[in-house]
């Protein structure tokens, strides 16, 4: 379970998160939508401790992320994250990209790590690209590889940050399919996305962010069918 209590966060003068409250249960899929700069990405990077927070608490399975005593490297093993920019490790093959962390972080043997990597890569449809270097992959394939890489650590939670928005329209579909599949398998997920159709189909709940505040949260039918907050209405009108 991920519990976020009254989280505040600033970059210099700019307050980017203004008291976020959100609890994500095991197996739940929460989608975050909202305008550019509203703090969606920042929230995700705070959840796995890549960014410090100013005040509030983020608790993952009972461990407070930003406590001094927390071993972040250990915590991050159970929180997979995939970013908007494809950040494949360009000097490693697809297989090596996926096995690196299991081997170095979990101390797995080569054979075992490769076994897992193969499974995950097949899962995302890259079973035939094991020996390829990322530069040879399309954007969509790179994104799927990044997903497999995160999954190979057997995380309990997955965070996705606009994983399709840097992709050509033709490639978006294949990545969204992969996410949908994961959701159906019961993975706990927080997805930041601009794909409204996807948000509606897959989410248990949808949150709308506006200028660092979570303006509204609810089941997809409510958010898309009957938005309460005027900003949500404006936003949805603009993206349709």
């Amino acid at each position, binding site marked *: 379970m991920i519990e976020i209590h009254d989280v505040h966060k600033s970059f210099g003068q700019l307050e980017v998160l203004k008291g976020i409250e959100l609890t994500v249960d095991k197996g739940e899929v929460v989608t975050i939508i909202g305008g550019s700069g509203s703090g969606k990405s920042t929230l995700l990077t705070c959840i796995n401790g890549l960014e410090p927070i100013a005040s509030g608490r983020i608790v993952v399975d009972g461990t407070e992320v930003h406590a001094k005593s927390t071993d972040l490297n250990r915590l*991050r093993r159970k929180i997979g994250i995939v*970013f908007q920019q494809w950040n494949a490790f360009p*000097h490693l093959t697809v297989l090596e990209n996926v096995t690196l962390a299991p081997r170095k972080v979990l101390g797995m043997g080569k054979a075992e790590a490769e076994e897992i990597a193969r499974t995950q890569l097949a899962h995302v449809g890259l079973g035939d690209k094991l020996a390829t*270097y990322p530069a040879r992959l399309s954007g969509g394939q790179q994104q799927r590889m990044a997903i497999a890489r995160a999954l190979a650590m057997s995380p309990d939670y997955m965070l996705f940050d606009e994983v399709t928005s840097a992709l050509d329209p033709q490639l978006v579909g294949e990545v969204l399919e992969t996410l949908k599949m994961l959701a159906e398998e019961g993975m706990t997920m927080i997805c930041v996305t601009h794909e409204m159709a996807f948000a509606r189909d897959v989410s248990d709940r949808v949150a709308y962010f506006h200028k660092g505040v979570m303006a509204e949260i609810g089941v997809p039918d409510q958010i898309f069918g009957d938005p309460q907050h005027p900003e949500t209405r404006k936003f949805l009108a603009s993206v349709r």
Partner: protein
Amino acid sequence: MFDTALSSADLIFLAKGAGMTIVVTAISVAIGTVLGIVFGVIRVQLGTVYAAPLTFFLDIFRSVPLLIQLVLANAFMGMVLRLQFSGLTVACMVLSLYTAAYCAEIVRGGIDAVPTTTRRAARSLGMTWGQDMRHIVLPLATRVALPSWIGLALGVMKDSALVYVVQVTELLKSTQILITRLQEPMFLLLICGVFYFVISFPLARFGGYLEKRWSND
């Protein structure tokens, strides 16, 4: 074309000088690179403000003619500190720091060239700072830095022509000794130039090749 009194003993003498050039270069580049990596990583980790003293210190080596650095270091070690270092030691010390100053800059550039997003990805997989450095940053930074590093090594080799001022008889000095005796300056200088060219050029080409190859992926 050339009617020369150059004997085989003289050629061996020149080869010894060339050997000295290579020895001085190898030692200085080796020590300088290690120091440069350490200084470079420290500079990146500390950030501009805290690393300022180190930056200033290294900057001196890039802002004062090497000839003066050598003369000064020699005078300082000997006259002021009264340490009895051989010329070779002084030459290697100065050239090592000289190399380190440039190398730190190259290392810093290499590390900066690794996108933060890639480093974040590594950290978010649970890798420690050290693992990130070891498995992601260094391999990637090396690709960016290696061509410049080869350029630096070549530069140091060429600049080592100046260590004659601390009584180290390297290639150019050996050539001058032979010129004094044989009085065939053009011929001897051409041999000397060809020699420098023969060591530099393939290495320079190799650097260019690496650059081309690695810029593709």
